[in-house]
Structure formats: structure tokens, C-alpha cells
């Protein structure tokens, strides 16, 4: 009788057996890309368990992270970032709509853009490709590929394809983008589009604040959804502590919405261990055309992340409801992820 193994075991074994190949590919690709390039292989496996139903969903990811700066004799021209990732789902009950089903395998582009930086000492750059939608707290931090997420879920879009103007001025930073509104994939649907932006104080300081907006029709599972939103965000760093908050109001499919988010994080001095807790609140009108009645949901999240000196990253996160709406349940989800970058 043929013995079957869990998908994660097969995936992990294949990754381990392919290790020498990855190291070779990593080095060879860096050589091929030439000067001023960086290449890294990124592997992760994640399990998310619904503690009520005991359903376990898996996501395995294998990708390449490429960073290359193009320069002339006396100045940088621009930076290319390419992050193609193969994502394998297993037993996922509600997969993102870009996947055919909960067991699909797909090539995705996490980030893929060229930022033209030769114009004015970083004050005015032009970015083209797939990049993070400039909105709120998420814009300042790199949360790609991690369990730790901020407010993306409230908007339903994290990255998008398009064009942006961005830069750092002596007292503020900005990015203004015109994108497809299609999220992870380039869309042929001409109905979707998104205009977004964030203007904030310098992210190098210990108090950072920003104003963001987005307006457009964003592609979702059942077509496009009209969204308008404005937000204020605030981050405060004090020794090993980080406090963050974001508040936004807007409209989604004609219904008024309001969102709140707060997070407290603590890190060890070497920053290899961090723990955080989040509170999320969301209020939305049920049907603006019928009445102004609204419903609200809220939940809390607690997480921990440990990073080794050698590229391993182990993280765990638990999400639990505080208040749920009639038609929108919040399941208690415990997620654990193992990630390795070389």
C-alpha cells in the first residue's frame, strides 16, 4: 500500500533536498545581475488552525528576492526589486480570490517595480510596477510574508500594479500612486482603478505621523467594490517599545465605514525577539439605501516573532473576537510560521 505524507512534510523535504541547488542559484543569479545586486532565497511554511472547528490550513511559499541598483558614473539611476514567489495552498477554506481553490499552487509577485531615483537626490522619484499601496501604517513597515499584519485587511488590497511619485523631503515623506486596483495580479478588467497616497513626517524619527487617502474601484471576488477612505496614523517609539495607531473613515460600496487600529510591541535589545498585541475595530452601515443602521466588529491579536542570527524566523499569532456582527463571524485562529532566508 502506498504511504501518504502530509503536504508540509513533502514540501519541507523537497526544500531541504534542494538546499545546495538554492545556494548555487543564489550565487549564480547574483553573478548574473552584476554589481550592486542582492539576491536572497525565501522559504516559509505556515499553518493556521481554527480552534473551534479544528480545521488546519497550510500555506507554503518559495520565492526569490532580487534587489539591483542601476548607476551611472556619478549617480544612481534607479532601483529594481523583483520578488516572484510560488505559493502552495493546502486545505484553505477561504482562499484569496486569485487562487482557483484552497489547494491551488500559483506564481505570485510580491513586489516587482523599478524606482527611478536620478531626478533630485531622492526628493522626487518615479516608481513603475507592483508595489505597496501607500496607505496608513502598513506603508512604513515591511510586513510582507509575515504573520504580523496591520490594517491591510480593512481595505482588501495591499499591493497593486501602477505608477507612483515618491520621495523624501527634508521634513516629510510622500508617495502618491495611480494603480489598477487589481491587487496581486495585472487585471484586464478596465473597471478597477485606485488613486492613493500618504504624506507623513520622517520615518527616521521617534514620533511619526501620516495622512493617507485612497479612492477607487478595487477588484474583489465578485467584481469591483467602490472604496473611499482617509486615515491618520501615528507611531511612537520609546526605547524597546513601539506604539502605533491608525484611524480611518470612508465609504465601501456606498456604505459609511469607520476603522480603528492600535498596537503595542516590545522587543529585546538585540531585536531578535518581539511580542505584540493589537486591537481592531470596524463599523459599517449595513445598507445605506435602506437605513443608516450599522454594525460593528472588533477583535484582538497577540503575536510573537523570533529571528535567529542565521536567517531563521519563527513566529506565532493568535486572533480572537471581541465582538462580531450577525453575518460576519470572527474565528479564533492560531497561526504558526517557520521562515528561512538565505
Amino acid at each position, binding site marked *: 500500500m502506498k504511504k501518504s505524507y502530509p503536504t508540509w512534510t513533502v514540501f519541507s523535504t523537497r526544500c531541504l533536498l534542494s538546499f545546495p541547488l538554492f545556494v548555487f542559484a543564489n550565487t549564480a543569479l547574483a553573478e548574473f545581475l552584476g*554589481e*550592486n*545586486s*542582492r539576491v*536572497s532565497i*525565501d522559504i516559509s511554511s505556515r499553518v493556521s488552525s481554527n480552534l473551534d472547528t479544528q480545521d488546519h490550513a497550510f500555506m507554503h511559499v518559495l520565492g526569490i*528576492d*532580487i*534587489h539591483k*541598483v542601476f*548607476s*551611472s*558614473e*556619478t*549617480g*544612481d539611476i534607479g532601483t529594481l*526589486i523583483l*520578488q516572484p514567489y510560488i505559493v502552495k495552498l493546502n486545505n484553505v477554506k477561504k482562499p484569496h480570490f486569485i487562487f482557483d481553490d484552497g489547494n491551488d499552487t500559483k506564481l505570485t509577485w*510580491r*513586489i516587482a517595480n523599478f524606482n527611478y*531615483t*536620478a531626478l533630485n*537626490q*531622492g*526628493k522626487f522619484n518615479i516608481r513603475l510596477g507592483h508595489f*505597496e499601496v501607500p496607505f496608513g501604517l502598513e506603508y512604513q*513597515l*515591511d510586513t*510582507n*510574508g509575515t504573520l504580523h499584519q496591520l490594517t491591510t485587511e480593512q481595505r482588501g488590497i495591499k499591493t497593486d500594479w501602477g505608477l507612483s511619485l515618491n*520621495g*523624501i*523631503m*527634508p521634513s516629510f515623506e510622500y508617495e502618491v500612486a495611480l494603480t489598477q486596483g487589481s491587487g496581486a495580479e495585472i487585471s484586464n478588467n478596465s473597471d478597477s482603478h485606485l488613486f492613493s497616497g500618504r504624506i507623513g513626517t*520622517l520615518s*527616521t524619527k*521617534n514620533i511619526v505621523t501620516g495622512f493617507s487617502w485612497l479612492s477607487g474601484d478595487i477588484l474583489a471576488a465578485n467584481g469591483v467594490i467602490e472604496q473611499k477612505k482617509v486615515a491618520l496614523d501615528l507611531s511612537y*517609539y*520609546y*526605547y*524597546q517599545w513601539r506604539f502605533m495607531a491608525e484611524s480611518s473613515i470612508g465609504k465601501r460600496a456606498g456604505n459609511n465605514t469607520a476603522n480603528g487600529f492600535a498596537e503595542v510591541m516590545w*522587543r529585546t*535589545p*538585540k*531585536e*531578535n525577539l518581539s511580542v505584540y498585541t493589537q486591537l481592531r475595530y470596524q463599523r459599517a452601515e449595513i445598507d445605506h439605501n435602506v437605513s443608516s443602521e450599522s454594525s460593528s466588529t472588533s477583535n484582538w491579536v497577540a503575536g510573537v516573532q523570533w*529571528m535567529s*542570527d542565521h*536567517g531563521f*524566523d519563527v513566529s506565532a499569532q493568535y486572533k480572537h473576537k471581541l465582538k462580531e456582527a450577525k453575518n460576519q463571524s470572527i474565528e479564533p485562529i492560531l497561526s504558526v510560521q517557520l521562515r528561512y*532566508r538565505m
Partner: protein
Amino acid sequence: MNSSAYAAFCSLRDPVSAMQILYKDGYQYRSIVATVTEQDRVAVKDKLPFTIHQSEVNKHTLYVLYKDRKAAGFLQARSEWAKWGLVEIAWAINLDRSLKGFYFQRCRSPECNDSVVQDINKQLHNKNFAQLKSLLTLDGEALSEVGKNTFSTYPTLALLVLRSALKTLAITDISWAKYITKIESDN
């Protein structure tokens, strides 16, 4: 260092604020990415009583600042461990490898405010490797008597900054030697 060494490359950002503050307007910058090797780490130990952390054996960027198409200086960002977390310091270096100044790209202590930065910068301005080294004790673990007199108000922060400055100057000369030689001959 620990948290950033394996960060995704989309989080890499040029130290634009530091360049604007330390070099003002009219400069262009060019990145030179070099691999800091284990041998380089050992070579720093020959110049100093301490060296860079093992997790820094990796690729790093030195920025060359140009004005009117002529090299005018360098800039490099380095991380140091403090008891409250990582401190990231962008160092502006003159062509003769003396210090032009520094900018805290990240320092989560309220002590790292603009007036402190200004005070320390004033003391470090145009000092070379030997002059900076004389501000530390022989084992590099504390401020020397001269150092204590120079930085009587913020000795702990000054020690961290000084050690960072010395490591930056040492590793710049070691890991980017061939590029610097070419830049000097082109100028």
C-alpha cells in the same frame, strides 16, 4: 545586524534624509554594494581593539556623493546595539576619510535628540581615525580621559557613536578599498 540582516529587500531604503542633512542640496549619490567578508572582519580587529559583529558579514552599501560630477565624500549607514535596541547611524565621511558628521536614522532613546546630535557632531567634525581612537581607552570599552572631558554630558551615547565611527572608517577602507582608489584617481 540581527533584525535587518535578513529583512526583505523591499525594506531597504537609501539614507536620503541623512544625505540631505549632512550634504545639503546639489549632490548626487551613487551606491557601491560590496561584500563585507569574514577576512574583512578580522582586518578590522587589526586596526581596532574590537570589530564588527558576525551578522554583518554580508552585502553593504557605501554611497559616494558627487557635486558637479566630482566625488565630494561618502556616506555609510551602520547599526549598533544599545541596551534599548538597534541604533542606526548614517556617517558622512570626507574624501580623506575624516568625519564630516552623522545622523541618527534610528535611535529609540529620547536622548538621541537634535541638540545632542549637534553637540557630538561638533566634537567629531573633521577628526580622522587616529584622533577618534584617542578618545577611547586602549581596550576600546570606555572613553579615555580626553574622551571623558570632550563628552562629559552624554558619555554613554558618545561611546556608542565613537565605536560606530571607528568601525565605519575601518570597514570603509578595507571593504571598499579598490573602489576608493579608483574614485581618488578619477577625481
